[in-house]
């Protein structure tokens, strides 16, 4: 089988999320990559070094500069003339583009795969991960999004892919990119952090979140996450949200502080290796999944913990 992996990048470098997708694709067959963007020769060179990379298709055009689905999907459809499967990371870009490709190919996409069981059969979570379905596709081609935490990352080095330019399918004139507000942070990205400290509604306000959660995270070299309640209340930006409808994470250690443990939150973090919970309510559901629990007031515990570390 010939697979095509859509490479997630920021215009300068390949994003880590791509590497897990390469691993999933390699289970199906030969791995070709697609780098679409503007001024992406360096990204293409980096993609070619990913272990297992075959052909690296490069589409360099202003139409692809911001990964607009309206423009990228027709390009992928074109390339699917000679590929059997296309795989995307389950990132916001991947989730945005993949279904548009699937519809144009008349294929039923399989979202968020956790494993490759055979050439047409995959497992995926449903109901916020409270059930795992094994599904088999009857379609002639496959469109898949891949849950990053479920696959090892392919090595970023050691490959010798062959770079090949592909013609642009142009700007479809349906959408215009009008700007972005991307927060710059020195902390590790949530989806690749080894340790995550997350705060919930109990933090009460943005000041407390910043003065309690962040120093602890910095002591541990951790990424910072949050529950939906903390995001809705404006303590932190939306991309901190961990859960069914936010980010899916699986760090070595996840520390949930003042988070009750609703199923929608658990869906995003219950595959963490070790879960630590700090909550004043000893019956909080988070303790049912926590490996280590500390019952008490976070406003006392967290400063003490940060100080003693």
């Amino acid at each position, binding site marked *: 089988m010939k697979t095509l992996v859509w490479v997630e990048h920021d215009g300068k470098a390949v994003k880590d999320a791509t590497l897990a997708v390469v691993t999933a694709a390699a289970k199906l067959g030969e791995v070709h990559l697609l780098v679409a963007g503007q001024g992406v020769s360096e990204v293409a060179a980096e993609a070619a070094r990913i272990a297992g990379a075959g052909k690296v298709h490069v589409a360099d055009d202003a139409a692809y500069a911001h990964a607009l689905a309206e423009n990228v999907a027709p390009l992928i459809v074109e390339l699917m003339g000679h590929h059997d499967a296309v795989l995307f990371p389950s990132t916001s870009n991947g989730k945005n583009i993949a279904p548009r490709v699937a519809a144009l190919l008349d294929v039923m996409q399989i979202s968020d795969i956790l494993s490759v069981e055979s050439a047409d059969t995959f497992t995926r979570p449903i*109901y916020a991960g*409270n*059930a795992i*379905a094994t599904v088999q596709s009857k*379609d002639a081609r496959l469109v898949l999004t891949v849950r990053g935490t479920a696959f090892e990352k392919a090595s970023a080095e050691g490959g010798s892919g062959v770079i090949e330019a592909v013609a642009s399918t142009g700007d479809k004139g349906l959408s215009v990119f009008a700007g972005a507000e991307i927060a710059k942070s020195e902390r590790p990205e949530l989806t690749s952090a080894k340790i995550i400290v997350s705060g919930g509604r109990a933090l009460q306000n943005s000041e407390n979140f910043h003065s309690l959660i962040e120093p602890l995270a910095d002591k541990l070299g951790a990424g910072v996450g949050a529950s939906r309640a903390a995001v809705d209340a404006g303590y932190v930006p939306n991309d901190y949200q961990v859960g069914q409808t936010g980010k899916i994470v699986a760090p070595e*250690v996840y520390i949930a502080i003042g988070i009750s443990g609703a199923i929608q939150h658990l869906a995003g973090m219950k595959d963490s290796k070790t879960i*630590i919970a700090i909550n004043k309510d000893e019956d909080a559901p988070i303790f049912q999944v926590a490996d280590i629990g500390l019952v008490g007031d976070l406003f006392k515990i967290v400063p*003490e913990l940060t100080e003693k*570390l």
Partner: protein
Amino acid sequence: MKVLVPVKRVLDYNVKPRVKADGTGVDLANVKMSMNPFDEIAVEEAIRLKEKGVVTEIVAVSIGEAKSQETLRTALAMGADRAILVVSEEKVEPLGVAKLLAKIAGEESPDLIILGKQAIDDDNNQTGQMLAGLLGWGQGTFASAVVVADGVAKVTREVDGGSETEELKLPAIVTTDLRLNEPRYASLPNIMKAKSKPLAQKTPADYGVDVSPRLTTLKVVEPAKRTAGVKVADVDELIGKLKAMGVAK
């Protein structure tokens, strides 16, 4: 202008899903069902556009079992003007739903279709993007703000790392994220009024759409269970554990 809002009937988000012992799926017998939360946000957004005078008519659409009528009545009680139910007792996958919605869009000629970003039962996150592809329209997914003026929808989107803004030529597709708005509750008088709002019943065959599934579910199982661990007495004991794990020095 006209807005179409597709709404799905799903297991209520407060109910803990139970996997059936025979491994065929999740048990939906005698459990509370509700409108998919993201679709409530979609209905609310359409109503707000109407209140602003941008929108003149809101049509709610659902595809599913006959009981999805209840979900449509909820949309009508919130403020939708009329509803279309495409009855299928068999589950229709996002691709089939998108094909039916594309046909309905062809008949209704809406300027905007607002969907949820994801149905919380199957967690597919596909239908809006598929529909946009089938119709050849622009798509503003994961919206946290929508401004419609001069034939353009300006959509702020929740993306990895922050937010992004796109301008879409109308007609266009929008899918909702959690921060777009807080949906209203329907008032009792409006619930009563909704009972007499028009609700048309159709079948996939009426639209000539083949909705036979492309995927076969071979089995559904519970995920590996996590068990509760230990409780520590104080911060010092917690630090001891962190040290033992090599997380703290």
